[in-house]
């Protein structure tokens, strides 16, 4: 398929695509040249992945044309796209876990011999890896590999099929910093060898580090395509977000009554290992207490014990003086505690139920929505409409299922619902994770509104910038212990960073 090197490797003309009545792409023109790394940039929900899924034959466009190396194509399945030389590495890997690396690379590949043994598969894989200069143990099972290695298997698989255009969907989202650097080197090398790489990302540093040209999408519309050279991060950011509203947070020193008190709380994680060790915490009405820490140091369990979702080994938790140890989850909710859970889809909503039902998931039994055994349908619908509007959830109607919403919209819905439910205490676990800049600002404003109206907020986030921005006081958690608590004014970024890494104040490792 390598014809004229001067004409584009791939181009789209006027591509449109809608999901559930909401436009994901609106007449998008896009063009990738041979031998270039082309960054496709935009916020969550801007349409980057949708565009590439169309190029890779996963979705079919509602309107518009796809032209590959000068020839118009209509991909009805990924197989067609592969035949045309377009291969995609998805954000969520499409690998068969119980199978080996070699088997995964040879899966669905017409060039795989009809009769195979593990040995021939391994030998073929070795040879191929040698040619491409990428290595993974061919005999390893996928579930034994690190995420970075799994990604390499995906790339190898796409290249094995003779892909000339490689699409990488947010490839660094799951990688460590070192793995990301290695990936950049691989990508540069592949492009130098004549391939085209489409690099989907919303991280500006990566755009500048890896791409030759870039295209910015916003709300399904192409904003610009330009060479990366000469572009600045702030310029790209402006195009991605439109006009950015910067949050101005006033930190306060609150001396009111404690709304939430933890005394000597210890608990176990799902594997039966100590997750919280003797935790003392106080959150006062009208203040935000931020929990800073690296993921997996007990934050999840902390949110769960407070919401009565997890039992305690020792200690006591009181909300407004009432001990929650003897309370059911519903009683805790009824006493004015809202919870934006870490796992929005699993814990926060019922994806197969309509938006309207999800809007009242934690309150359908209250007098506002039900009389005796019956649900007051109209009041549920009215409430849901108001909620959807206030949270700016993009949905066809409140009767669409929650599963049809994009991730960002699901999150806005849950965050707003819980914030409304929280009179006394809001537990917000990673409330802006995975959200684009604007949606994150909205969720943060919602949380600040609750604080200003006298609600206590426990903010858990592994984004230190967010914790520093939002919190009135900051507690650092490490291996289930509170390492220190600071007023926002005296919080020192470097000091907190050391505590998060387990270094105590004297410099010793805890």
């Amino acid at each position, binding site marked *: 398929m390598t014809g004229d090197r001067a004409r584009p490797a791939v181009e789209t003309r006027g591509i449109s695509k809608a*999901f559930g009545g909401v436009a994901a792409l609106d007449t998008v023109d896009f063009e990738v040249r041979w031998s270039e790394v082309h960054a496709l940039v935009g916020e969550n929900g801007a349409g980057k992945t949708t565009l590439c899924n169309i190029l890779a034959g*996963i*979705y079919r466009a509602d309107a518009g044309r796809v032209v590959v190396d000068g020839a118009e194509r209509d991909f009805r*399945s*990924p*197989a067609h796209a*592969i035949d045309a030389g377009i291969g*995609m590495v*998805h954000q969520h890997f*499409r*690998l*068969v*876990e*119980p*199978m080996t690396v070699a*088997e*995964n690379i*040879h*899966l*669905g*590949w017409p060039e*795989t*011999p*009809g*009769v*195979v*043994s593990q040995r021939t598969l391994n030998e073929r894989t070795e040879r191929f890896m040698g040619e491409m200069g990428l290595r993974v143990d061919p005999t390893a099972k996928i*579930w034994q590999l690190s995420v970075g290695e799994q990604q390499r298997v995906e790339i190898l*698989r796409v290249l094995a*099929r003779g892909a000339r255009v490689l699409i990488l969907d947010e490839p660094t989202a799951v990688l460590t910093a070192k793995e990301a650097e290695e990936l950049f080197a691989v990508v540069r090398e592949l492009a130098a060898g004549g391939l085209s790489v489409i690099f989907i990302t919303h991280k500006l540093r990566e755009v500048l580090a890896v791409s030759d040209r870039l295209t910015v999408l916003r709300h399904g519309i192409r904003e610009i395509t330009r060479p990366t050279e000469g572009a600045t991060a702030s310029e790209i950011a402006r195009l991605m977000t439109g006009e950015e509203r910067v949050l101005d947070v006033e930190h306060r020193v609150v001396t009111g009554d404690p709304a939430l008190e933890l005394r000597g709380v210890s608990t176990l994680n799902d594997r039966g290992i100590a997750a919280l060790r003797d935790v003392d915490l106080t959150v006062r009405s009208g203040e935000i207490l931020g929990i800073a820490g690296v993921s997996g140091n007990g934050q999840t369990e902390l949110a769960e014990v407070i919401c009565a979702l997890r039992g305690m080994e020792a200690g006591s938790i009181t909300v407004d003086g009432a001990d929650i140890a003897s309370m059911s989850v519903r009683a805790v909710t009824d006493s004015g505690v809202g919870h934006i859970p870490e796992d929005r889809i699993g814990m926060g909503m019922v994806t197969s139920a309509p938006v309207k039902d999800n809007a009242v998931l934690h309150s359908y039994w209250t007098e506002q929505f039900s009389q005796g055994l019956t649900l007051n349908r109209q009041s549920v619908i009215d409430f849901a409409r108001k909620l959807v509007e206030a949270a700016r959830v993009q949905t066809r109607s409140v009767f669409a299922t929650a*599963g*049809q919403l*994009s991730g960002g919209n699901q999150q806005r819905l849950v965050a707003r619902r819980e914030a409304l439910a929280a009179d006394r205490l809001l537990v917000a676990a990673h409330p802006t994770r995975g959200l684009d800049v604007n949606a994150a600002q909205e969720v943060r404003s919602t949380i600040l509104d609750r604080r200003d109206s006298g609600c206590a907020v426990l903010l858990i986030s592994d984004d230190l910038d967010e914790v520093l921005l939002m919190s009135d006081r900051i507690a650092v958690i490490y291996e289930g212990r509170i390492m220190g608590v600071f007023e926002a004014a005296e919080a020192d970024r470097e000091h907190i960073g050391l505590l998060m890494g387990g270094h105590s104040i004297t410099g010793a490792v805890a």
Partner: protein
Amino acid sequence: MILAIIENAFLSLIGSAIPASAVVMLAATGAMLGERVGVLNLGQEGLIGIGAVYSVIAVLSWGVESPWLAMLIGMMAAAAAGLIFALCVVAFRASQVLVGLALALGGIGLSNQLGVNRNGTPIQTLFREVNPGGVLDDNDAVSAFFFHDPVVYIAYVGLPVVLWFVLFRTRHGMNMKAVGENPAAADAVGVSVTGWRIFYSVLGAALTGAGGAYMVLSFTPTWSPDIARGRGWVALAVVIFAGWRPGWAVAGALLYGSMISLDTTAQARGWGLPFMGASDLSFFLSMLPYVVTLVAILIPAGAVKLGRRVRSTAAPAALAIPYAREER
């Protein structure tokens, strides 16, 4: 003296268990084919009935004189039922459990209705026993183990070897397993999930139908209502017991087939319990296969609970989960 009696009982058990288990073996292989690509067909019981009744019809009403042809007709009838099932659950993504149960009950009803005028009519068109190589002595022990009709050899040797080879030694088998484990991954590399799932559901149904045909063309050998008598359910249990591996299905089918035969032997010999005044053990014995299945399921589950991964015997990850590409 006592030894001789025990030996005698054992040999008669084996002699009847091997052909009795061949039905289970064929149905289990059929069920396994579908499950390997992620389609759980709970309708095995109905498919056995359909396969059996159409073979009976072929022999008694259409004058078919070859047992092979009669079996083929039974297989095609079951395949047709399997195609309807596959269209419902694969193309229209209906619940595999619900449609499967409907097929089980509907298939039993349909076959009983079609068999109504043929109850008890003996069938003369039978598979004949063969003496492999013609070199073996004709004594009790040898005949119990080795003198069987060709279908027995196909079910216990031919099918498992072919299926093992396809699953573990071919490109085709690799793709098959991928469809059952992670259809999105298979789809992403251009394997048609829908096509493969329909094809193997139908082929599997045909094999189960062959099991039904074998019942009436060999060891029953006559039509009677509810002919499968639980063998379809047992076949599903065997697949779990075997951990979706063709070789283990042989062991599973023999084990389960023996339990079924025990139940008949117990009835025939009037074995009873010395307590509770129970003079008939057969109901207890007919329960045994399912108790063993529970244990077979709990052992790997328990091992996982203890922190040990038992991946090789785990069900295909996408079993009974409909696949749709354009969902979000």
